[in-house]
Structure formats: structure tokens, C-alpha cells
């Protein structure tokens, strides 16, 4: 587990009053900042808000938007709802996992992508659909489109460096 930069937490905690109702907003901010909830940070929050650590942990493990292990830069949510399922979402997911060399939904070792499966994201007319970073929805996916989708975010993520050639070519293939 990487070293946690604790200095980022303090200004973040300053924005909120020390009340237990602020627990979830704080956790959301931490999740956005670190892309996961580091153990040290949770302990700090527990002390600051005077909420038992068990309760912080309970909330952190309850909601799916929180993660206790580092997540990738881009979170790809592949919808496996009924409509998406019948229109081939499992195949899209398989292709995506194969392109990212993942055994199952999870995070790539280079922390660029996290693949998640979700139930329904509420646009069954666009099935099969995937959503990236909770914002960009990609409709009517096919296996052929998966490579392009990943490449788009890969390039953005690796803008200063050269995109990894082997992975890009693998995605096209």
C-alpha cells in the first residue's frame, strides 16, 4: 500500500464542521482526493468527528462509492442490468477485462483503470452501456468499440508520457 500523504487531509477536514452528519461528505471528498479511503485518514476522521472508528468503517464498507483499496484513475462501470445483459453486456465486459488483462472486475496494476459492474444506470434505451468516471456515458457498446473507449481515456491519462504501445495495439487487435 502506498505511503499516505496525510497533509492533504487537514485542509479538507477544515471545510467541514466537526459533526457526525458530515461524515459522508468528508468521506466523499477523501475518496475523490486519494481515489480510496486510506486507513490512517479514516482514523483521523474518527478522532476529529468523535465518531467511533467502527462506525466510520461501517459507512465506508457499506457504500459502493467508497473503496478501501486504491482505485484506478478512471472508473469504468459496465452496466449488467437486464436490458444491457440481453443486448450483450457480458461480452462487452469480457472484452474490456481481456483488453486490460484483468481476471475479473478490479483495478489494473498501473492504477489507470478500475472496471466495475453495476446493475442499472437508468438508460436502458442505450443498452449496452458503460459509464466512465460517473460522468461520461458510452451508449450502444460492442466488443469492437471497447478498444477505442479505453484508448480515449488511456491517452488522456498518459498525456505527458507516450501511451504504452503494446497495450494500445492490444486494444485494437
Amino acid at each position: 500500500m502506498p505511503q499516505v500523504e496525510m497533509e492533504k487531509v487537514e485542509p479538507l477536514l477544515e471545510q467541514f464542521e466537526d459533526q457526525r452528519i458530515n461524515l459522508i461528505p468528508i468521506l466523499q471528498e477523501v475518496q475523490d482526493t486519494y481515489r480510496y479511503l486510506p486507513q490512517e485518514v479514516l482514523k483521523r476522521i474518527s478522532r476529529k468527528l468523535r465518531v467511533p472508528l467502527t462506525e466510520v468503517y461501517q459507512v465506508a464498507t457499506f457504500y459502493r462509492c467508497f473503496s478501501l483499496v486504491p482505485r484506478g484513475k478512471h472508473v469504468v462501470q459496465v452496466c449488467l442490468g437486464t436490458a444491457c445483459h440481453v443486448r450483450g453486456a457480458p461480452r462487452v465486459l469480457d472484452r474490456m477485462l481481456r483488453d486490460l488483462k484483468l481476471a475479473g472486475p478490479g483495478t489494473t496494476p498501473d492504477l489507470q483503470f478500475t472496471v466495475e459492474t453495476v446493475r442499472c444506470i437508468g438508460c436502458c434505451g442505450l443498452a449496452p452501456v458503460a459509464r466512465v468516471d460517473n460522468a461520461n456515458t458510452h451508449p450502444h457498446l460492442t466488443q469492437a468499440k471497447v478498444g477505442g473507449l479505453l484508448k480515449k481515456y488511456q491517452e488522456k491519462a498518459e498525456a505527458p508520457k507516450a501511451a504504452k504501445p503494446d497495450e494500445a495495439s492490444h486494444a485494437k487487435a
Partner: protein
Amino acid sequence: MPTLTINGIEVQVEKGTTVLEAARFLGIPIPTLCHDDGLVPYGACRLCLVEVSNGRKQTLQASCCLPAEDGLKVLTHSARVERARRLLVEMYVAVCPSSKRIQDMASAMGVRQVRYQAKHETCIQCGLCVRTCEQQMMAGAIGFSGRGLNRSVSRPFDMTSELCRQCGACLYVCPVCESRCQGPQAESTLCNGCLNISTVCFQSYDNAMCFLEPCHACEIGGPFRADVQVKPRSKDFTRIGEK
């Protein structure tokens, strides 16, 4: 001071009393697994459900979380309630077949067979340990984590908590920790069902005193009946002796 009717008996209780407390005040036993007098009601086990009518419709509600109100008509042991409770306790037996308290409860309610596959879980998620730790021991060392099927009682990050004083209160209140007595046919019969079956020890040690802790049935049942034998019908069905 709300006045309510429980099983036809009018009772006046203080404001803020729950129906469960009112019934127990009258001496009406309502089975519970997740209730403890010193803890905030949780309403997890649902075994305390009662039939409540407030004029129009009769509904089943958990009495431990239901505040006593004026004019409430409560039936604690109607046929509908008993049926619902039997179903619930049958499922609890299937989840935790090793628990003595659950099996005793099931036998006392007249459950004769368990129609569900045994899960052999170690927890029924009644929240007693979590609440005791937090509310009575003022520690908060254990809590729930996860959600749905993955929900479990755990310590944060699965590490020894510095808040835990190892007082053992969580074990003391746990309804599942105590194993059922390993009498004859422990696999296929419900504990407390020895009311209906013959035991081996009683015959082999004629007048010797039994030092085993008597189960509920032994206490209330007295001498064992030698004439009834258990015949399990099939593998999937847990069945205890019928008359």
C-alpha cells in the same frame, strides 16, 4: 399515559413504553432474539411480532420497536402471529442449526421440521454484541461492515482494536454462541425435542445423577418418554418425533 389492550386485557403504561415491555409487564412471554432490556431496540429478529389493530386494519408489527399508544389492540399469540413466528424461527434454525437458544425456541413453538437447507452460519446479525459493546461497555470496538450478503460483525480493518478491553460481553449476549446439547441424534432433531424422544443416558445410568446442564425441555418435561422414537423422513428434512 396511553391505555392499550393486550390480548383483551387493558393496561395503562407510561409514555414511551414499547408494546413488548407492556406485554412483559403483564407476564405475557413474547420470544425475542435481538432484544435486551439495557439496549436500544433494534428490530432485527422480528420474532417479537404481534398483531396490531388500530381500528381499521390488522397488521403484524415488531413489538420491540412499537411504542404503546392509546386504543391500540394487540394480540400476542393469535394464529397468524404464531404461524409467522414459526416460519421465522424455522429459518433461524436453518441459518444457525448449532444454536441452543434458537432450537429451544423452535421446539417450544412447536416447530416439528425444518424445511430449509442448513446454512451453518455463525451469526444471525441480531446486533446484540455490537450494541452491547457500544451502549453498555462504552467501547464501540466491534461493528457491522459490508452490506447485504456480505454484512458481518467485524473490527475495523480486521485488526485488534485498542478500544476492546476483552470484557467478553459480546460473547455473553450472543444468542448463537451456546451450542445445543449433543444428545442422541443431534443432527436430525431439534434441541428441546427430547420431550418427545427417549434418551440413551437415562437408561444406561439408572439412578445416577446427570451432571449435564439440563436443557429447557428436561427442566419442564420431567421424565423422558421411552415410547416415542425419531424417524427422519429423508436427508433434506430435519424432523423430530411425532406422537
